[in-house]
């Protein structure tokens, strides 16, 4: 265990940024929090979490895959992949840390997504325990402990100190690069912080939410539930939930005609969109009900069915606060299991 006083945070950032790119959660002019490249003077946000999740680091919203140069009647294929540099992400919350392992199950499974893998290998995650979780937080439902956030290095902020505990090789390597600013210490303060957080966790309004009634084996009964209609009827079909979600990983691959060639890129897609997985025969999910059901079935049934019971949600609560009509996974879970209890 290492520690550094809060007032030395800027020095830590500065030293980190000398070695590799550093991202920290900070406030935009409009007051929204997002991960930004650190530069002198940039301050850590007071917001509990960022609007967009940390998945962007490994699975960006758009990414060029390949290019084609068209000259007259000839076409040439261009490799547009750039060498990714090492980067450090500071202050990732426990939920987002867990989301990476969920994304790994998709992108690192065979066939490996080399674009994703490349980024994953270059990123070091410094997680931060949640001292003041929001009412929308329900990571506990999925067995995530926001008091011990994980990642390459996990951190606690308490009593004017940041406590750092490396958990991986990459974490150790990072500690080495900034060791000049750190002092070694015992684990008592961090443990005390963990206890405080545990106490808060119990008070959270969604603390009682469980995954009971969901999972890979509940396919048939949940799919045919009559409640989907009512749940989906207000859904606008926008992609807000999908795009702020740390685990949504659907993408579309498109060609962009640049006038002198083609740029083939992939971009996030949303199962909420009317043209999601549309093929020449049309869109297999014709109404918003089916598209809505797809999103939640995927997270709560299909994903665990294919991934040893691991759910496709980390309880970050972003969709709870961002959905334009305030429909969300918690309401869906509660509603679907309403009669059961």
């Amino acid at each position: 265990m290492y520690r550094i006083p809060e007032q030395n945070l800027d020095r830590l950032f500065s030293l980190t940024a000398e070695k590799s790119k550093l991202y920290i959660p900070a406030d935009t002019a409009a007051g929204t929090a997002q991960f930004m490249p650190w530069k002198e003077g940039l301050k850590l946000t007071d917001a509990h979490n960022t609007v967009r999740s940390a998945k962007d680091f490994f699975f960006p919203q758009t990414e060029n895959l390949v290019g084609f140069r068209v000259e007259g009647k000839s076409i040439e294929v261009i490799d547009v992949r750039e060498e990714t540099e090492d980067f450090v992400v500071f202050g990732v919350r426990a939920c987002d840390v867990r989301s990476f392992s969920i994304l790994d199950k998709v992108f690192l499974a065979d066939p490996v997504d080399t674009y994703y893998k490349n980024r994953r290998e270059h990123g070091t995650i410094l997680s931060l325990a949640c001292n003041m979780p929001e009412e929308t937080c329900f990571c506990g439902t999925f067995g995530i402990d926001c008091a011990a956030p994980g990642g390459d290095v996990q951190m606690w902020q308490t009593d004017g100190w940041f406590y750092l505990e490396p958990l991986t090789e990459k974490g150790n390597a990072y500690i080495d690069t900034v060791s000049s600013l750190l002092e070694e210490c015992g684990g008592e303060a961090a443990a005390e912080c963990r206890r405080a957080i545990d106490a808060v966790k119990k008070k959270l309004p969604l603390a009682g939410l469980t995954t009971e009634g969901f999972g890979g084996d509940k396919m048939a009964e949940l799919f045919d539930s009559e409640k989907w209609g009512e749940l989906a009827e207000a859904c606008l079909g926008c992609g807000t939930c999908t795009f702020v979600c740390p685990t949504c990983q659907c993408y579309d691959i498109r060609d962009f005609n640049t006038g002198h060639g083609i740029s083939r890129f992939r971009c996030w897609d949303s199962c909420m969109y009317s043209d999601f997985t549309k093929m020449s025969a049309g869109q297999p999910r014709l109404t918003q009900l089916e598209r809505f059901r797809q999103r939640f079935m995927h997270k709560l049934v299909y994903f665990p069915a294919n991934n040893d019971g691991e759910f496709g949600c980390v309880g970050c609560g972003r969709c709870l606060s961002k959905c334009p009509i305030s429909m969300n996974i918690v309401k869906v879970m509660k509603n679907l299991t309403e009669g059961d209890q």
Partner: protein
Amino acid sequence: MQEIMKKRASELLLDGTVSRVIGWKAGDFVYDITPAVFESAEEIEKDFVYTAFCGANLSKYLVKESKKPGKTLVFLKPCDSYSFAQLVKEHRVNRDSVYAVAVECRGKADVDKIRDCGVKGICGISEENGTLTVDTVYGDKTLPLSEVMLEKCASCKTRKHAVYDELLGEEGEEVADCDRFGKVRELESMTPEERYEFWRGELSRCIRCNACRNVCPACTCEKCVFDNDNSGIAQKAAADSFEENMFHIIRAFHVAGRCTDCGECTRVCPQKIPLHLLNRKFIKDINELYGDYQAGADPDTRPPLTDFRTTDAEPSIVYRRGEK
């Protein structure tokens, strides 16, 4: 108010005047209210709410719901009623199959603004005489409603409905001192460079979630040009700053003269982009160049972009702006 509305809605459902009611449904945290269709008095009794957090404009749901058999009751706040009237005007909603109930509104709260006041872990909120008491995981807090109102309510233009079949509560007045163009004027007085920086800063946060479009009561296209691969301008992601500009300019242009300034776009934007400033720019320009026009205010007038005067200003008026 809520109880009056519940009573009336139940009555109308029971006597068969209406077959369904579009209203607001309670959530888990007081503020997370979902628009919903109620088909029985029991459902109304159980979940119907009308609180300071019923900001959502229900009129757009009528595009779908009004096609169902029987009449659909919809609750409309003053600003929502303009959207409704505009939808009727554009034949998107069949007026005869809607039973419009006007409800009074004194402004709705924005939970994001409450959070911006440093409030975390909200478990409950109660309103009394314009003061909100917020119960949080970390203790209680009180806030005046007027300070945490939605942008659209802070710059409310009218508390009077455009159209309705029945009014519940008291009809309000137009807000005489409404200065909804203040920020637009401020932007206009900046240099082009400053304006460019401002908008790049705002629009660069866009994640193209389409929430603004999908919530907009003027955006009811069967298929949006941005979703139509044959349109030549379909976009799925904001892959380049141009695409952000293109989407927002064209969207604002498509609703120009039809936008009632209901403010939903800004309310739902997860990235807090002040999208209403684009629409209001068009509204302000239209008012100044072609005479005051309020979309949805009446059933007959031609929207400004499908109308003209032979004496209209020339486009060069734009170049002369800012010159003295």
